[in-house]
């Protein structure tokens, strides 16, 4: 029998209009309690207007050992950056 509560990842939106950001993790028996725990652990200094929690087991993460094949190929592809266009002065700052 497993006695540990599952781990939950917590995402908080600081203000309306911003994205939810990962702020940390915590343990809780279910999603409702995870939300309440997140409220108590991560928003006690008025940090947020919205909370998401997701069970950590449901997050599929890329493996650090795959760093080479996953990310290095894009390092040498400068043509993927739209930096070769001359922006007309009339367009202003983009």
């Amino acid at each position, binding site marked *: 029998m497993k006695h540990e509560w599952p781990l939950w990842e917590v995402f908080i939106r600081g203000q309306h209009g911003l994205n939810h950001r990962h702020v940390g993790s915590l343990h809780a028996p279910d999603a409702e309690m995870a939300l309440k725990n997140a409220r108590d*652990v991560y928003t006690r200094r008025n940090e947020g207007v919205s909370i998401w929690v997701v069970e950590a087991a449901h997050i599929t993460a890329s493996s650090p050992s795959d760093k080479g094949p996953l990310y290095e190929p894009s390092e040498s592809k400068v043509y993927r950056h739209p930096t070769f266009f001359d922006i007309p002065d009339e367009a202003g700052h983009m």
Partner: protein
Amino acid sequence: MTDQTALFEFLLRLGDNTLVLGHRVSEWCGHAPVLEEDIALANIALDLIGQTQMWLGLAGEVEGAGRSADDLAMLRDVWDFRNLLLVEQPNGDFGQTLMRQCLFDAFHVELLTDLTHAPDDRIAAIAAKALKEVTYHLDRSSETVIGLGDGTEESHRRMQTALDLLWPYVGEMFTADTVDDAMHTAGIGPDLTALRSRFDTRIDAILAEATLTKPDSIYAQSGGKTGFRHSEHLGHMLTQMQWLQRAYPGATW
């Protein structure tokens, strides 16, 4: 009893309930079974102490004898406290603490809801602010009571034991005396009979979901809110809570 005296007593009851329960809950700080519960309990304790500052601050104002909220909290002895017997009961195990919390929160939410309509703006304002905090307290405590009641065989047994132990302290919340009557007549205090039926509706639903059995007894301990006879536990708690002001009078930081 003049209206002013009754109002002072009434405000002491409100402030002493939150003070004593706040201190009790704070005793868990650093000892709760998991970190998340530890922080949650500390938050609840701090909410209650914050409410105490407002209630006892107003009580001191109404009394007009120059006593501050701190004076009232730290320099009175057991017989001057006006809290319910329920809130001074020891923490016991985690389940017992949460059962005590849930029983008080269910009463507290209804009481504060009524007080938000008080003709005295100061009372209505404090009640409105406190109600937001207490709504969350009830949300949390009721969900924990349900989770543990309808949990394992051991957690169910502990919650039923806690309920049986604490039930005799429920009646005092709804037993009206001269202070309650005077406050109700003044349009400030609630109708405790009506409050009881709203409390019962809430608690019955929570206990049913928690698969717990409400004790059949209507026997009610009394003597807390009148100050007539507190349980032995309050004195022990006050020696902890007040020792610094007693040992170093007027100490500040």
